[in-house]
């Protein structure tokens, strides 16, 4: 009875239709949100797990450094965990696409491409902040230089970005996030195995291997990002034509 009653109460207070609504709203000069407001509002839509995981990784690094000191083994542990931070980011991007945000786009001042790019930008800044924080902490504790350490940590991360974006650009099913999760796990395990099996992987001898891998994955990731943007633009056109 209570449910029925609440349902009835929705309409009990209905008033006659207003006569001058459209005219008033069209003439009303109410302040519209600017770019900064839009940017800030998008932060609120990013799920808590992104912030929590980023924070956990950062705290984990601090604890790891405190207890074990920096060593090569710690470098590969961190570089194997970093792809999971990018997974959370990727899952945020995939969510926008797989849950048909393009429908929402049509009623918004900003289109899906802008919304997606703003979110990617925010998440990229968060990832970069975590990454630089970890890099600063580790570089002081190891004899590896800042740049070398940066390459060691970012290469698996970039590989994961490339793999996940590759999946997103070619799939629109709701399982995309799970496929991205599998890619991340694969990258992480691969990174761990290589680091354990090849004992001198972080030495000067393999400098070229790391440099090539870093550049290659950076270029491939960039290519996928460009493809992603183009795809969003196509979506915008499709929506316009079918609206």
């Amino acid at each position, binding site marked *: 009875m209570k449910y*029925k009653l*609440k349902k*009835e109460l*929705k309409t009990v207070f209905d008033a006659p239709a207003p006569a001058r609504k459209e005219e008033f*709203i069209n003439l009303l000069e*109410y302040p519209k949100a600017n770019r900064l407001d839009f940017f800030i509002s998008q932060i609120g839509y990013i799920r808590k797990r992104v912030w929590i995981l980023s924070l956990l990784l950062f705290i984990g690094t601090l604890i790891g450094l405190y207890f074990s000191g920096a060593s090569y083994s710690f470098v590969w542990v961190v570089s194997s965990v970093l792809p999971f931070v990018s997974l959370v980011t990727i899952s945020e991007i995939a969510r926008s696409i797989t849950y048909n945000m393009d429908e929402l786009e049509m009623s918004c001042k900003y289109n899906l491409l802008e919304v997606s790019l703003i979110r990617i930008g925010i998440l990229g800044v968060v990832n970069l902040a975590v990454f630089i924080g970890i890099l600063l902490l580790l570089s002081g504790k190891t004899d590896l230089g800042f740049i070398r350490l940066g390459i060691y940590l970012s290469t698996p991360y970039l590989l994961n970005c490339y793999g996940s974006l590759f999946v997103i650009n070619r799939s629109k099913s709701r399982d995309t996030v799970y496929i991205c999760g599998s890619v991340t796990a694969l990258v992480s395990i691969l990174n761990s195995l290589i680091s354990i099996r090849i004992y001198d992987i972080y030495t000067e001898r393999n400098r070229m291997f790391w440099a090539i891998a870093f550049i290659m994955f950076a270029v491939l990731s960039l290519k996928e990002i460009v493809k992603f943007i183009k795809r969003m633009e196509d979506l915008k056109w499709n929506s316009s034509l079918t609206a």
Partner: protein
Amino acid sequence: MSLSIHDQYDKIYKYCYFKVKDKQTAEDLTQETFLRYFSQKSYINKGKPLAYLYTIAKNLCIDFYRKSGKDERLNEEVPANDEVTAFETSYAVKQAVSTLPVELQEMLLLRYANELSINEIAQIMNISRFSVYRRLNKALDLLKGVLRKEDFNEI
């Protein structure tokens, strides 16, 4: 505003209509509410809590009664049948609601018709969240008491 201005217009209008029971006046007060809401320059980019919009509407309705010399309490009935029969609402529930004190009616409107949160209602009514819960439950209990179960089942 975070929510559509079209939606909010309808809701504020519904609220004003509940208060003044006159279509023309309700719409004037609704428009005045929005003009005042957006005239606050300090909130241009930050937005204002939704409760503020209702507070303006509420104060405007009070001013209206003060100026016209009418007594708000005399107008406790829910919109009369002739104007609202077009709407598919139960006559029995409408009658039952009209027997409640006006404060409880207002609370039911804000909560169930305009779908405000408990927190927002507490801000508008200037009471605690606990009081809102308590009064809403009281209103529902009173309604259930007024409505005979068999009557209500026919809805």
